[in-house]
């Protein structure tokens, strides 16, 4: 049961086996994780291998996210990308301290919630939400077209009534 503060992993090589060795065993989704590839010469290759690894292991962004820090601009992928460590969300930047009894109690409660959330992942609710969002987009586009056609109709009717 770890305090949910960032765990920073500096990726030291862009070779697939080396990345796998470095990431293997890390408890993704149980603590927020930052994977830093900014020091590498071939960042694109490293990101590709990291993404493949995370997708293969079905690493979810819930309850805790995984961020990749890279100097490549405008990269779009399955995970969240940042240009520098400073730009990652500040919420999880906290100093590690010894917990008092009260804080320990909250942490234990959070652990149970985390387990609860992990159990819901098995029902593929995330996929359902994506499907739901896509459906809304379809309905939005259809209604947008209807509004456009109605505005044309209104103008034409005003023209004929003259």
């Amino acid at each position, binding site marked *: 049961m770890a305090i949910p503060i960032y765990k920073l992993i500096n990726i030291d090589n862009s070779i697939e086996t080396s990345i796998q060795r470095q990431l293997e065993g890390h408890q993704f989704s149980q603590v927020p994780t930052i994977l830093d590839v900014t020091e590498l010469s071939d960042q694109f290759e490293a990101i590709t291998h990291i993404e493949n690894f995370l997708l293969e292991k079905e690493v979810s962004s819930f309850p805790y996210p995984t961020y990749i820090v890279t100097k490549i601009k405008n990269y779009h992928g399955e995970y969240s990308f940042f240009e520098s460590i400073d730009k990652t969300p500040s919420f999880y930047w906290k100093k590690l*301290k010894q917990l*008092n009894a009260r804080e320990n109690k909250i942490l234990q409660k959070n652990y149970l919630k*985390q387990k609860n959330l992990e159990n819901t*992942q098995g029902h593929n609710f995330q996929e359902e939400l994506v499907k739901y969002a896509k459906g809304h987009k379809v309905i939005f586009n259809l209604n947008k077209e209807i509004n456009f056609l*109605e505005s044309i109709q209104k103008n034409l009717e005003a023209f004929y009534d003259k």
Partner: protein
Amino acid sequence: MTNKKDENIGFKEFLEGEDKAFLENPNIGSKSRNNSNFELETFLEQDSNRMSKLIETFEEKAFVIKKFSQFPQLEIEAEAKNIAARIETIELCTRENSPLFANIDSIFKKFFK
């Protein structure tokens, strides 16, 4: 009056901020650990709230969406409305004196004189 002065002995320096020695020593027993502005506690509480909301979204809302999706009906309704609006617009556009025909007529006349 003298009694009141006696009551303030020991507190006067503290109230006037003269005795700051206790501020300079961060390790005064267990009190210092508790006196951490509750930063970590607040953070853990916020994280707890965040997770409660995630559970609510995934367990309740996503379940309802999955089991009782309204999308197919809404899509059928929107498509029917869309088709009706298109037909009506075409009907208005294809009238003899419609501005569409007038504009096309003027463009053709301009280019094919």
